[in-house]
């Protein structure tokens, strides 16, 4: 689905991502891990086109797809239209838009808009339905997080990117989000790329893992292979 080769990125003068090679198989649920400040968010923003990489390639599409896209040639909005949904770290809700308008933003990139799309989001996140008229910015942190996920789902993405989606969400809903991701992945073949710090959740939801350390891709494999040794080496301080 996503294949990253030799990716380098700089913030001004500081080299943040170093020669990243990474493959996200179609239909996988890959968890991207790493300590704070290792470049996880930066990598996702590169994929989304919100920061620009200085070198390397990012290919998007199934492995055998003849029409694989060179994402670096596309603008962020085009990437969204091609089916990449994004739940950013820090929620990035449109604070002055109502909850409903925030959700409708998820429908913009799509030509065909299933009539029940909104309803499905409401069943997944009932809170949102109660607060349709409220400004997005007024929601509590966890409510905003749910809104951000609902908004990304409305885009009907082929690849869903989530940057620490459970941050600030109450435990039972965290659980439901996990279930939801697994279910969507099973039912629609949605590929999921998720950044998550909490190991139990990662182990439950992810099928694969990738680890970033100091801006380099240092480990990869099926989640079952994520050993305590690796965790100690790369994820503890």
């Amino acid at each position, binding site marked *: 689905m996503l294949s990253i080769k030799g990716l380098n990125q700089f*913030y001004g003068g*500081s080299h943040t991502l170093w020669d990243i090679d990474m493959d996200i198989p179609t239909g996988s649920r890959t968890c991207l891990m790493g*300590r*704070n*400040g*290792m470049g996880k*968010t930066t990598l996702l923003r590169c994929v989304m086109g919100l920061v620009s990489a200085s070198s390397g390639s990012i290919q998007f599409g199934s492995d055998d797809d003849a029409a694989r896209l060179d994402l670096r040639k596309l603008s962020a909005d085009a990437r969204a239209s091609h089916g990449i949904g994004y739940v950013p*770290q*820090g929620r990035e809700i449109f604070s002055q838009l109502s909850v409903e308008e925030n959700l409708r933003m998820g429908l913009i990139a799509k030509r065909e808009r299933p009539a029940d799309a909104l309803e499905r989001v409401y069943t997944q996140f009932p*809170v949102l339905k109660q607060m349709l008229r*409220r400004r997005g910015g*007024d*929601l*509590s*942190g*966890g*409510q905003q*997080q*749910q809104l951000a996920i609902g908004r990304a789902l409305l885009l009907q993405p082929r690849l869903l990117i989530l940057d*620490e989606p459970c*941050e*600030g*969400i*109450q*435990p*039972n*809903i*965290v*659980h*439901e989000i996990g279930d939801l991701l697994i279910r969507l992945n099973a039912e629609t073949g949605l590929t999921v790329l998720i950044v998550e*710090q*909490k*190991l139990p959740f990662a182990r439950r939801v992810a099928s694969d893992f990738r680890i970033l350390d100091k801006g380099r891709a240092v480990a990869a494999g099926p989640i079952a292979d994520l050993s305590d040794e690796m965790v100690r080496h790369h*994820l*503890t*301080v």
Partner: protein
Amino acid sequence: MIGGRFLGQNRRSAAPRLDLSHNIILYLEGISVSFDGFKALNDLNLYIEAGELRCIIGPNGAGKTTMMDVITGKTRPDTGSAWFGQTVDLLSLSEPEIATAGIGRKFQKPTIFPNHTTFENLELAMAGDKAVWKVLFARISSEQADRIDSVLRTIGLSDKRNVLAGSLSHGQKQWLEIGMLLMQSPELLLVDEPVAGMTPQETERTAELLVSLSGTHSVVVVEHDMAFVRSIARTVTVLHQGSVLAEGSMDQVQNDPKVIEVYLGD
């Protein structure tokens, strides 16, 4: 030890003095807040003891952050009263006065000064007289510099000492904000979701830090990470729809069916 605190009474004459004679540092009584008719806090009552470490949990939107807003003067309640110790009426003070009186806060969404270095962020937060004239002629003493350095070590940002805070990662910003809280050396710390976006090990370190602070300080922590809460909690308060749903030890709360239904799930 806490009682001894009111011996040093002439700390600052202008600021209202903290009186902990009943060993309660924070009283919230009958607090209600509504936004366009929606009741975010509904007749909330909460008492925090001096030196206590209190965890507050509750569903998203229960009103936890709003409660902190009320305590720090950001939001004015429609009804109710809020007292800091016996004598300080929080509702009559402005935000800086509340901060000066001894309440520090870490925000849910990390907010730091992006165009200042990490060091300067801590310097700004440092306790001391913050009147315009004082600040104009203030100099950092070597003692203060040491203090900042030690906090930098505590929050693991020593190597980012001279980096603009705006370019820190999310987790680093969380730590910086905790550091600013430490620099303020408040009597009461309000900590809103400190471990969101932190790795398990960092979460542990945060837990240790907060536990070590309690006793000499009073700490109120809001968090959704149950493992974290379990590791630090003595008393847990559960908020739901703007009022207290349950309160007790972690075990009591964890097995409360109401709490399981609205919050924990099974």
